[in-house]
């Protein structure tokens, strides 16, 4: 346990980075994922094609490659810069990659949520004259979200763990620090590993429990 106590500031900072990456990417993925879902169910064939093409590509590309794309393609080649500070810039590039990847999974979950909403709900909405946007925003999506609380929770947990891959765009989060500490404190490999592993258990376990509780609370009685 010695190494973890000696380096507790580094460990805490590493997990703080993990939490920040997770939180910002979660917001981004929910927004982009909802938008993609709306596109996929929209009356315009071109929007449906674009969204489903995007989801297929993003879901089936390894996250490592997605993040390399954001670092080398978007960052180095397209010259997108979020900040002069390189570490801040890398942080936002990581957010971009994690969001691009995770939103495809959010879209898949939400789409299956829309499938659980009875057809009559949309038909009733149309019969009182609501437009497509109103039907989706007021009637369908609120019910779809409630149906997919648990899958969204799993996606969020996966995202938390996926932030470790942000190291390929140069973000110093938990995995980087663990590797450094294994090298410096070679005699305490197991303690260091368990310290970091337990950190993730602490982050993920309450998330799962919370989403389970939330889904029971928000369950739509039909």
């Amino acid at each position, binding site marked *: 346990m010695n190494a973890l106590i000696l380096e507790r500031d580094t460990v805490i900072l590493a997990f703080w980075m993990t939490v920040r990456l997770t939180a910002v990417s979660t917001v981004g993925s929910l927004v982009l994922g909802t938008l993609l879902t709306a596109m996929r169910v929209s009356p315009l*064939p071109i929007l449906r094609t674009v969204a489903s093409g995007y989801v297929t590509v993003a879901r*089936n590309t390894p996250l490592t490659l997605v993040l390399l794309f954001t670092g080398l*393609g978007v960052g180095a080649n397209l010259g997108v810069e979020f900040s002069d500070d390189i570490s801040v810039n890398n942080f936002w590039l990581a957010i971009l990659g994690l969001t691009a990847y995770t939103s495809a999974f959010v879209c898949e979950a939400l789409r*299956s949520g829309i499938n659980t909403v009875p057809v009559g709900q949309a038909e009733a909405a149309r019969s009182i004259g609501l*437009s497509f946007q109103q039907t*989706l925003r007021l009637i369908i999506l609120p019910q779809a979200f409630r149906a997919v609380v648990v899958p969204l929770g*799993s996606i969020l947990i*996966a995202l938390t763990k996926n932030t470790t891959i942000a190291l390929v765009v140069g973000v110093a989060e938990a995995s980087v620090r663990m590797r450094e500490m294994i090298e410096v404190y070679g005699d305490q490999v197991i303690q260091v590993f368990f310290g*970091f592993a337990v950190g993730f*258990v602490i982050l993920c376990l309450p998330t799962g429990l919370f989403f389970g509780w939330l889904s029971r609370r928000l369950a739509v009685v039909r």
Partner: protein
Amino acid sequence: MSTAPFGNLYEAPGPRGVRRNRVLTVAVTVVMLAVAVLVYVRFDANQQWSAEKWLPLLRPDVWVTFILPGLFGTLKAAVAGIFLATVFGFVFAAARMSEHRWLRVPAAVVVEFFRAVPLLLLIFFAFFGSFVLIGTSISAFTAVVFGLTLYNGSVIAEIVRAGVQSLPKGQAEAAYAMGMRKGQVMRLVLLPQAIRTMMPAIVSQCVVLLKDSALGFIVGYDELVDRGLNGIAANFSNVIPAAIVIAAIFIAINVTLDKLAHWLHDNSGRRVRPGGEATPATAEPQPVEAL
């Protein structure tokens, strides 16, 4: 009724709606093209489209030296991972469903632990910690397979457990009533039925595992991403073309596996009981974890 999916969400457009949709279609197309042109121009400024960056990817020797060995590395890790994870999954699912507390509780702890720990931490632990722990360094391949096995094995254990528990209770009761022993009930009655329900979810998990094998890149395992970027791109400085080709290979394999999962899903529904309605088949195959 429109044939489009989710066509019940909107009215069939009238004359004005048709016109508006046409305008919107054109507008969306223009925006998409504008983005494409912008990306094209920016990449072009860095010569990412020039022939000398793309032509190497058509050369047989580049495929023989880099892409095919990389693909072989990826598939080798994936196949080893799938095999070991399946074994791990069945063993721990059985342990977790055991009647003996001393077996059930530790199995549950192991499964829940490895599902919560990021795969990359497992790989780093094995790769950088192995020398201290077992006195010898293990190969990047071993470290990657170690991580893939523990993580995906735990997920498969949960898939198996859910599959067995979704069976009607009468199946096991009937088997016990015939005088079968515990092992026989599981082996002859429960597992054969559960495996059919589980196959789509397990195939979906294989997609996850295959994608995860790309983490091998980080510890320098010779897989597709590594060969593409540290092999091809280092030689021809064509990062973007190489990455696009590599991504296309991954997408092609995974989409095929995904189609297989859906096909299995559509064909795995249990038969209609005589005089009754069809028993609900499986839920739509969803990867248990997003990555």
